[in-house]
């Protein structure tokens, strides 16, 4: 299976300015968050990218995309009617080909030489099915993520066959339905904000949106997808950083800097800061 296109959603309420935030990357170069995301996508071999934005933001996003702007198609979601609905806005762009899907308020830092996006795309291409990036997450973080239940594929270390997907499950539900053999109690596989999806997912979303008449989450569609076709999850070797939460941008910047060329400088600045500040 070849994956040549990507979809980034950035139209959520309060989300539209996040990809425009400027950060310093691992190489010490100042970029927007969007530019960094696009760089990863392009490095993974993706040709064209659609970004779902809210009305009136196209110009700012185009500028933020920097050198990658020529690969980007902007799709406008006129009303913030839901996550599933946002993905469906790009349906005509995506056609009937598999696609990579990322969220616009997350940055990913791989813990190995291969980038997070590339790890995911390689597995999806090899397995020829939808694959979601996941990460082992403590139950206390369940209110923030979609989570999967499934079984580890034989002869693999980080690949799981997905049986069940629940959006922001309660720990009660998670304990009953999302247990994974070999995991410590209270640990679950939660979405990494990164998926490779087949067109079937769009079909399901389409039907759900048409019948439910309410905001539809991607997790609902993926839960159905797991019943319908082979659907895997890959435990990504890396970290995700949500720049949309309190101190999210700061943490992301620190993570970038401390794993890049400016590590010593940032560390010494931090020590100086620590030494000079008093609790007010």
């Amino acid at each position: 299976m070849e994956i040549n296109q990507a979809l980034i959603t950035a139209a959520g309420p309060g989300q539209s300015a996040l990809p425009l935030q400027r950060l310093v990357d691992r190489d010490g170069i100042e970029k927007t968050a969007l530019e960094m995301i696009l760089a990863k996508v392009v490095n993974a071999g993706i040709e064209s990218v659609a970004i779902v934005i809210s009305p009136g933001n196209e110009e700012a996003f185009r500028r933020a995309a920097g050198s990658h702007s020529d690969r980007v198609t902007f799709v406008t979601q006129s009303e913030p009617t839901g996550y599933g609905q946002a993905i469906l806005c790009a349906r005509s762009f995506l056609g009937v080909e598999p696609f990579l899907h990322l969220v616009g308020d997350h940055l990913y830092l791989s813990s190995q030489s291969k980038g997070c996006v590339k790890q995911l795309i390689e597995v999806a291409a090899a397995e020829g099915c939808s694959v979601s990036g996941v990460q082992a997450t403590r139950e206390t973080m369940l209110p923030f993520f979609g989570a999967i239940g499934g079984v580890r594929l034989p002869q693999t270390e980080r690949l799981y066959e997905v049986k069940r997907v629940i959006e922001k499950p309660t720990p009660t539900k998670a304990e009953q339905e999302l247990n994974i053999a070999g995991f410590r109690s209270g640990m679950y596989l939660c979405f990494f904000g990164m998926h490779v999806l087949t067109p079937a997912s769009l079909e399901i979303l389409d039907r759900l949106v048409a019948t439910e008449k309410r905001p539809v989450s991607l997790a609902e569609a993926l839960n159905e997808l797991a019943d319908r076709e082979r659907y895997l999850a890959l435990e990504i070797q890396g970290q995700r950083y949500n720049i949309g939460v309190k101190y999210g941008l700061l943490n992301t910047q620190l993570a970038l800097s401390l794993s890049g060329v400016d590590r010593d400088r940032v560390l010494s600045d931090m020590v100086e800061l620590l030494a000079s500040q008093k609790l007010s």
Partner: protein
Amino acid sequence: MNSQTSTANRWIETILSLDESVRHRTLESLCMGLDSDALLHAVCELDVFRRDADNLYHRVRAHFFLSAIYRYYLPKTFPETQAGLLPYEAYQHILSRRFPEAIDQLLAVQKEQGPTLVIASALSRAYHQLGIQTLADQVRRSVRTVRGNQWMFRIGHPSEHPLRLNKELHQRDAATGDYPILCEKTSVRMDFSHSGWSDIFFLGMDYPEGARVLNASIDLGVYGRDATTRPPVEAYLRVIDRPVLRLVSTDLGVEAEITEIDDVFDFAKDYLGLLKSALIASGVVPPAMEGCHQKMSQLLKSLIGKEGLGLELVSKVNDIPKGSRLAVSTNLLGSLIAVLMRATGQVSALVGGLELQDQQLITARAILGEWLGGSGGGWQDSGGVWPGIKRIEGMLAGINDPESGISRGRLLPQHTILRDDRISEASRTALQNSLILIYGGMAQNVGPILEMVTEKYLVRAEKEWDARLDAQRIFEQIVVALEQGDIRRVAKLTTENFTGPLQTIIPWCTNRFTDSMIEQCRERWGGQFWGFLMLGGMSGGGMGFFFEPSVQAEARQWLLQTLVATKRELQTRLPFAMDPVVYDFAINDRGSWCEMLRSDEATMPDGYYAIVAPKLIRQDIRDLSEQSQRELMRLNRSCREGDGRARWLLDRLLPQAQIDSDAKSQLPEMLRVNGFDKTQHEQIRTDLLSGRIGLSENRLPRQTVIEDVSLDDMIDLREIGTSNSRSSDEAFLGRRAIEAGQVAVVSLAAGVGSRWTGGAGVVKGLHPFAKFAGKHRSFIEVHLAKSRLTSELYQCPVPHVFTTGYMTHAPMEKHLASVNNYDYPGQVLLSKGMSVGLRTIPTARDLRFFWEEMAHQVLDEQQQKVRESGHAAILGWAKSVGEASDYTDNLPQQCMHPVGHWYEIPNMLRNGLLHRMLNERPALKYLLLHNIDTLGANLNPLVLSKHIESGACLSFEVVGRRMEDRGGGLAVVDGKRRLLEGMAMPNDRDEFGLTFYSSMTTWIDIDQLLKAFRLDRTILGDTAMVENSVRAMAAKLPTYITIKDVKKRWGLGQEDVFPVTQFEKLWGDMSTLSDIRCEYIAVETMRGQQMKDPAQLDGWVRDGSAEYIHSLCKWS
């Protein structure tokens, strides 16, 4: 292999076998024909086995076998003279629940000294409690390991809280600005089949095949009060605009605002324990947060996702009394848990009905909540959450269940709903047209019964095991009859179940009240009365009566009147919490149901405003939150619209004439007529406050030397056995005295039997506590039956005196008249009490001494937590009401107290009864004095002979001490033989060096006693002289301060127990007086044992004591 080894192996083989015919071997068949050596060998082998057994139930069954052998079989194989002493450390280990250590120590003593009665009784108790503890721990562990419950035991900090409140709940209504209210309405459950208490977890988890009930969700209405039936319990939840957790119980009339997380775990602080359990079990305040010392606002912020908001949880029971045996509390807990789980997204639907998996989850959480709250109900109790009629059955544990390898059965049962295709609408209607549900009004403690059932099952007691199999057969027939719509047969089967298997397993599940109601139904309605149904653990609370449908309406009216009349007749004999109630009921086919109340409908139930509104009105309106202001505006509007709220609001806001003033105003008069000594009372108060008297001051000085008596210093009749020797030569003097009319019996019945009734204030002597010769008999009937046999044997009617007190005199007089003294051939006389005390609020010093210095059985972990939290509340109560102030906040009878049994013989002098008796019977020379609960005490000619021969003024009977015999004994105190009260022991340890326990039974030489009082027969009529001599004698004796429990009843069947202080003088202290010659006679245990607690009854029947008592009696 020798024969002993093969005997021991038989027990272990029974425990381990997979073959049912071997595994279900009964205790009796295993013990049959075993001598002392074989039994001792078996207990050794079983003890080794239980230490190594991996399987929980193998271990537990070995514990119960060991307990039963030590309790019922081994003691019969060695003589009573092998009394022995109990090591104090072992006793302390048992009290502190360190059972394994206690057992090790007791076994070491047994090995060294040989088996003794006291060691056997202690080992029996330790093994029994270890068995129960092991089971309880396992249930608790299993509840925790149920999937969906585990996470709550890991989340220890509010910032980690993984639940989020449904956003709909914090969206204000656009028009009113109010938050919506989530309202859950839930039925209660009724159990048709009972099936031998098979819903006890301990049974279901070992014997799932036998655990089955037929359980219906029902809506209720009180007959004559409610127009329709409705779900009896309701739970309300809403967001409030203050960052606190507000809990309101409308049925108990209390509310609290919780600002600290730790307070949620303080169950006994107020009446909101059930709501707190629901918060914990629902995961809103996860159990792992106990002791986290964090603010509730922090948790609420995580949970709601916004600052400054809080939650309000409100419970409502539609005036259904507590103790209805319809699992009202558990279903209210289930309802509260359901509403909280809906709000936090843990069950699938926010409103409407519940899915099957949700019902299962709520059931598991309700079980968890009950165990957290220290109550621990059965697994069918949350049946009201489920719809309709269902079959609930134990399930074998599968390989993937957490119970696998631990117990045969799963913790959680399987529910199969019997829908219309199984039990048709016509059958349901027929059932409703025949069955009348009632609440009998009796206050009961079912806990001991559940322990008895468990033990009898695990040792496979023969009769009881057969009865259990019989109950299972009846269960299946009830299901078939219901499916066929044959309600008459259902009634026949439930009656058969009650009179057959249930009463065989637990004879105490029926009582005089229930039997009387069934008899009256049969008499009045004949064939139109179809049958009886017992609900819950025992009868007297919830019950069902089946009638032919054509007379149901008439029978309902009659039943209510008859229940109330029967209760009135028996209320001084049996503990009733309130008047009986008759219900209307309907089967609820949709289960627990939830609605979201919005806009103008978003109001709490009326009871809520009655509690909350007065508090709000008393505050400055500007200090109230916007939400509270709107609430008051709405209340104002509805008051103006004249919906009746204005009246109750005024009632609560403005002072009214005291409704209960009648009862309170009676107290001074009752004190006056019963001989209350105000001067003495004030002196006691002053002394209490100054610390001159108190619990610690009851004790003798530390340097007092306490030693055990030598057998040479007493008369030992244990070996020969008093009951078998009445015709012997040695008994000649006694026989002659009885034949000559020289003896009378005095039974002490002035006390209120606090331990027997838990402070309920009924007359213990009149309690029809056990069946003899097919009939419930009271203590006084038993005593008269013994005197009747004596009268017949010796051809001389024995006068029998019952001493009475302010609480017991009138009921006993009335009762004896109504039964014509049970046709007793001799004189039956009442000696009326002449003095009474007024209870006082305990001092904090005495309360602390009572809880901390005196020995108490530590409870199971969770129950102990509840108890300790209750102590803090009681200390607060004592300080706020006033230490040592008069206790007057109860019925007058409950505020007064008898002043100790020492006064009861002097009362016979003061009220002239002894004078009259001596005038009428100049031959009268001796009295046999005994406690009302010493059932074996009778006019035994051998013991009387020994008394006469000794020439003593008083001969006290003593028995070899067993584990449970605490409270004093026969001692040598600073070189003098005397009876020493437990509370006077300088040190708790001293009692454990004493071989003999005092049964309080005393043979009195009347003339010598009068002489000690400085009186004689000729001057007994001189009242002033008698009064002076009694006062002079009283002054020589110590006054003890004691703390007793007293019940206060309120609301619908609610009861609170308060500790109160009272004083007493005790008869045993007569042995301290140097001018009174005393003798001590050791008798066999069965003659001297006392019946202090209803939980003793079962063992008392099983060890042959009841049969022994029966052999001493001649019934009318």
